[in-house]
């Protein structure tokens, strides 16, 4: 028994020393802000592994399809597409780190779409209703309005043009003329204005189809769930099917499991703990310093070290683009929100003041620690409703040139990093310079999205620390200011589309608060108004 005890203690101390050494090296590197490149090498290895895994899955799937081919002889688009979709990921893995091209805004790009929406797609503001999949922007209704005709639905034209004159009464002749111009089904027909049309029984069909399409696939509800991966990344949590594919993959998965849970997890937890200790100690010490100037400088360095430690505790690999646009003086920095860890990703390079709701629990502790050493703005929930107080405090903060730039997430809630939802106009009313930042995570290595309705903070952190790594791209964008004739809402939209374009995200008009609240009645009323405008009444 005693022998076993001594063996244990010897092996413990043997393993402990190199572990401690590793931790110390990491701490040292964090404090000077340099990296040896271990994480990047790790990520490269993982990529090669995923590629191998993907090819393997493909081969296994092919064999499976060959073996039970008789059951599925469908000629339509069919199961063969599934194999083809997995083969696209080889280009994807080469393009890691670059945005996946310019998405047609409004198209559903979360994983693979199930349907293609060709007709009506409703939006909270009817001038953003997409009536045709080629014609995404809102200029179509406006041009028709200029000619003082009301907006017409394309479907009416399509039906009429194909079928000729209908018995619509006096307007039939004029409609025929217009219809004969709009013969083909593509988007050019939208630019032909239509007269107000009489009600027909077929008018409702467009809305019915739009409704059923929304039930099958809609832009909003999928933003609040983790992104679907095209190919399995060897984590159980992303494997929808839990089916057995091959022995080799299972072995790789088991090795990965051991590495992640038994080696990486303790390492990461240790570093995170050290980071937290450092933050607590340094902020308490800094708060004792009397001189504000000195405190600011010390705080800057201490925060950088803190967040670098946190970044290492997730094995974060951050690719920074355009560092010349990094906010140095004060101002408002605006970014898309996926997780609270966004702050860590951004704060490894520059120092920010933060603004947000006061939390309880673990986040609350962090908030209080940070507030000791520097000026952050934490709100009580009741105060958040009072927008004037928020704006005033923001203005106060921004007007003092000594203050660091303030980091705001105007979406107000975490979105799953495939789209950018409506930016709240509050931070755009302050009148200061806006520094947009786009953050895009690579979901293959670990899904960074915090689904707050499903997981608590602790569960989320645990999942983060047992993923492979967190890999993200950060793009700093040129600063933007409000144009003289632009209101805050349009300014917010403009900034949002710049961020969405850079990050390769879908630009949505919908409010992120739909995560928790129901759609507003006014939006339905606006759709009703839109339809009534097109209806001819005697």
């Amino acid at each position, binding site marked *: 028994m005693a022998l076993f005890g001594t063996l244990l203690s010897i092996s413990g101390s043997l393993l402990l020393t190199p572990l401690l050494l590793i931790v110390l090296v990491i701490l040292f590197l964090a404090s000077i802000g340099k990296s040896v490149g271990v994480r990047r090498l790790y990520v490269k290895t993982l990529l090669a592994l995923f590629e191998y895994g993907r090819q393997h899955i493909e081969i296994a799937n092919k064999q499976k399809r060959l073996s039970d081919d008789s059951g599925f002889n469908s000629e339509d688009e069919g199961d063969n597409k599934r194999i083809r979709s997995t083969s696209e990921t080889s280009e994807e893995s080469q393009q890691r780190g670059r945005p996946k091209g310019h998405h047609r805004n409004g198209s559903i790009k979360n994983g693979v779409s199930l349907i293609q929406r060709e007709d009506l797609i409703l939006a909270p503001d009817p001038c953003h209703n997409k009536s045709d999949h080629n014609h995404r922007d809102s200029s179509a209704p406006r041009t028709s309005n200029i000619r003082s005709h009301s907006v017409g639905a394309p479907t009416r034209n399509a039906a009429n043009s194909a079928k000729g004159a209908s018995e619509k009464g006096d307007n039939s002749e004029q409609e025929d003329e217009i219809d004969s111009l709009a013969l083909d089904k593509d988007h050019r027909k939208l630019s032909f204005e239509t007269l107000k049309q009489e009600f027909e029984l077929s008018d409702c069909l467009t809305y019915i*189809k739009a409704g059923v399409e929304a039930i099958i696939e809609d832009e909003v509800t999928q933003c609040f769930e983790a992104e679907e991966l095209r190919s399995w990344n060897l984590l159980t949590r992303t494997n929808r099917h839990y089916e057995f594919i091959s022995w080799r993959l299972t072995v790789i998965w088991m090795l990965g499991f051991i590495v992640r849970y038994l080696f990486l997890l303790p390492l990461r937890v240790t570093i995170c703990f050290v980071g937290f200790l450092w933050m607590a100690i340094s902020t308490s010490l800094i708060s004792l310093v009397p001189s504000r100037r000195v405190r600011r400088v010390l705080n800057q360095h201490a925060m950088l070290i803190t967040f670098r430690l946190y970044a290492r505790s997730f094995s974060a690999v951050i690719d920074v683009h355009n560092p010349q646009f990094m906010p140095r003086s004060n101002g408002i920095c605006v970014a898309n929100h996926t997780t609270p860890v966004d702050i860590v990703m951004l704060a490894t390079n520059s120092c920010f003041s933060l603004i947000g709701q006061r939390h309880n629990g673990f986040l609350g502790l962090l908030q209080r620690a940070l507030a000791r050493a520097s000026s952050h703005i934490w709100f009580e929930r009741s105060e958040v409703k009072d927008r004037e107080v928020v704006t005033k405090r923001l203005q106060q903060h921004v007007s003092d040139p000594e203050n660091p730039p303030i980091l705001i997430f105007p979406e107000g809630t975490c979105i799953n990093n495939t789209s950018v939802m409506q930016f709240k106009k509050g931070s755009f009313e302050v009148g200061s310079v806006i520094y947009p930042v786009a953050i895009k995570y690579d979901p293959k290595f670990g899904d960074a999205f915090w689904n707050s309705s499903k997981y608590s903070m602790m569960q989320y952190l645990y999942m983060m620390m047992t993923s492979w790594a967190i890999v993200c791209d950060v793009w700093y964008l040129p600063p933007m200011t409000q144009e003289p004739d632009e209101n805050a809402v349009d300014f917010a939209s403009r900034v949002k589309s710049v961020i969405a374009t850079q990050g390769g995200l879908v630009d949505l008009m919908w409010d992120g608060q739909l995560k928790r609240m*129901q759609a507003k009645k006014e939006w339905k009323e606006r759709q009703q108004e839109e339809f009534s405008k097109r209806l001819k009444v005697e």
Partner: protein
Amino acid sequence: MGNTSSLLLREDEIAQIQEKTGFTPNQIERLYSRFTSLDRGNCGTLSREDLLRIPELAINPLGDRIVHAFFQEGTGDSINFLQFMQVLAHFRPIKKNKDLKLNSREQKLKFAFKMYDLDSDGKISRDELLAILQMMVGSNISEEQLTSIAERTIFEADQDGDQMISFAEFCNALERTDVEQKMSIRFLN
């Protein structure tokens, strides 16, 4: 409570649904994962609230009627996956030389007819049409004007003079409409 929702469908369930609706196994699986993600309470069925939680459906003027179409066959307040699929099957595109399960032109027209026929008596009365019009325009047009629109529509479609539109008259009125395109959803895979 034996009604647990499993993440996977069994092979025989998929085959059964394929037989009844004509969807491919891949589509069935994708739609099943959509079904489970809409099913917040994880009870294996969807309620009306689950569907109306979709913002784009909630702002659709006919949203309530569409949801009602899913809950029609005396199924009470919840539908299971098969019932869900059977409604969606109406919107499959029509392909030549293929067995039309639930997506023939007549089936599609029947679905559209049910949108208008509020009391499911097989006829669209003037009041029903008026109610639908009110759903579509809200309070933006007065009731008198809507009534006259409803009366005119019935007058144009009514052939047997009973002041109501039967299913046959409805199909006749929509003869020139490209129902196949308007009531079909393009599935990608």
